[in-house]
């Protein structure tokens, strides 16, 4: 804020830490009433803020949520849809799944939020694209898994690969903020990054050290890339919708 950043993005569950288990029930909050949110909302007067928290939306029902705050108000809340539950990940044991991917207006254009595993669903990326996103913001707490001789975790490339594809084919910015540090021996792989609408990596943070990185986004690049690549103009969501309906109907048979 001292550097007059206009948007700051924190990682997934940034208010509480990632590994919570039964603590989920103790730290869940309702943003409309929470004193913490009152403070953060006040901080968002000049700098838009994206953060992660446990949301108790209905009494006793908890979501892994992220919020976009601006001008002292909550603009949008996203509830994590894809809750990884396998191996060392057990989110669906503790959280209810969200049900939607929506875009919303910000002073930088339309934005969409995703949380960690959401981003690895290309369907979810498509929905934000079809919803008109100029900026896809991903908050994450992705642990590093597997090694490579090159250094870094084997899983690092997975996030960048998706970001490169999504930013290029949706002609929008992708902002990915990932946790660093250790919780119960799991090392979060950090490496937060930003891709521009041409699929170009603009900045990458350290995989191990906590860092605050700044990057200037040239919003004109959105228009420039869409003039070259009319993916957005040529999209046919109604075809996709009908085809999906047919596929889903078949499942139900």
């Amino acid at each position, binding site marked *: 804020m001292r550097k007059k950043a206009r948007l700051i993005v924190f990682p997934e569950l940034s208010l509480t*830490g990632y*590994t*919570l*288990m*039964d*603590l989920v029930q103790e730290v869940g909050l309702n943003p409309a009433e929470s004193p913490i949110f009152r403070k953060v909302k006040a901080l968002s007067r000049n700098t838009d803020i994206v953060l992660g928290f446990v949301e108790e939306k209905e009494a006793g029902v908890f979501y892994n949520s992220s919020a976009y705050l601006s001008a002292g108000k909550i603009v949008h809340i996203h509830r994590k849809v894809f809750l990884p539950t396998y191996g060392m990940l057990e989110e669906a044991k503790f959280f209810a799944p969200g049900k939607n991917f929506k875009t919303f207006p910000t002073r930088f254009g339309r934005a969409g939020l995703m949380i960690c595993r959401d981003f690895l669903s290309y369907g979810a990326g498509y929905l934000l694209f079809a919803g008109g996103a100029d900026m896809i913001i991903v908050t994450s707490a992705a642990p*590093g898994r*597997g*090694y*490579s*001789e*090159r*250094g*870094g975790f084997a899983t690092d490339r997975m996030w960048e690969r998706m970001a490169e594809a999504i930013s290029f084919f949706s002609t929008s910015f992708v902002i990915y903020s990932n946790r660093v*540090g*250790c*919780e*119960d*021996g799991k*090392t979060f792989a950090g490496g937060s990054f930003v891709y521009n609408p041409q699929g170009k990596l603009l900045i990458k943070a350290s995989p*191990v*050290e906590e860092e605050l990185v700044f990057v200037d986004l040239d919003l004109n690049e959105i228009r420039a890339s869409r003039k070259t690549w009319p993916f957005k103009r040529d999209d046919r969501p109604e075809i996709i919708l009908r085809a999906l309906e047919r596929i889903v109907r078949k499942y139900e048979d």
Partner: protein
Amino acid sequence: MKINPSFVEKVLCAFIRGEFGKFNYQKAILGLSGGLDSSVCAFLAAKALAPKNVIGMILPYKDTFGEDVKDAQAVARRLDIRSEVIDIAPMVDTYFSGRPTQDRVRIGNKMARERMSILYDFSAKEHALILGTSNKTELLIGYGTIHGDMACAINPLGDLYKTQIRELAAHLGIPAKILKKKPSAGLWPGQTDEGEIGLTYGQIDEILFRLVDERKSMKEVIAAGFAKEAVERIMTLVRNSEFKRKMPPIAKISARTVGHDFLYPYDRNR
């Protein structure tokens, strides 16, 4: 299976620093055997926490492992960490003098637990956290004494196979003498892990990597060219040592039970 040693070093040092910060400890204590794993662990701790915050406990049984004591002291000098030598023979001998045995495993386990008991006492005395040095190979095949050398507060090495620790050691500049030493649990003079298990660490690690990391079936590993007897022997060791990798089961009676559905992170409140 090849690691990038400088990346692994960075992650492990950050892990050690992070855990000590969370639990509000400055000092680390560990058993220094003069072997590879404890030397690597001491190097990492000295790097992560500064040498003045690391205590190496050298705990021989008489002078049965004479060279090892010297090697451990050389590591401590090289790192400029504090070290302390305590002979565990009086405690172990007192116990067995009344109930003599030739069972080398029982004697070896007793020695491992004697060392653990001293480490925990010193950890209280020095307000220091105990660093574990069990590697992934040992943890998987159960080659360790439960409540003995496996006991610790945190373990930076537990996800590295023995052969990977050797790679890391070379990168860290561990003395060549220790790098070349035959791995030994120090259970009796002349004992070597590989002699006792009947396979080299290279062979064990290659097989474990396929079975565990790559989730291959025994059939697939054998088809890839590994000796059937070796694969079966390793799988048996892994299957039979699950109890060493878990908390003991608690008989569930209530609605909410420790170890079943009273679920909190290790880092709770940290």
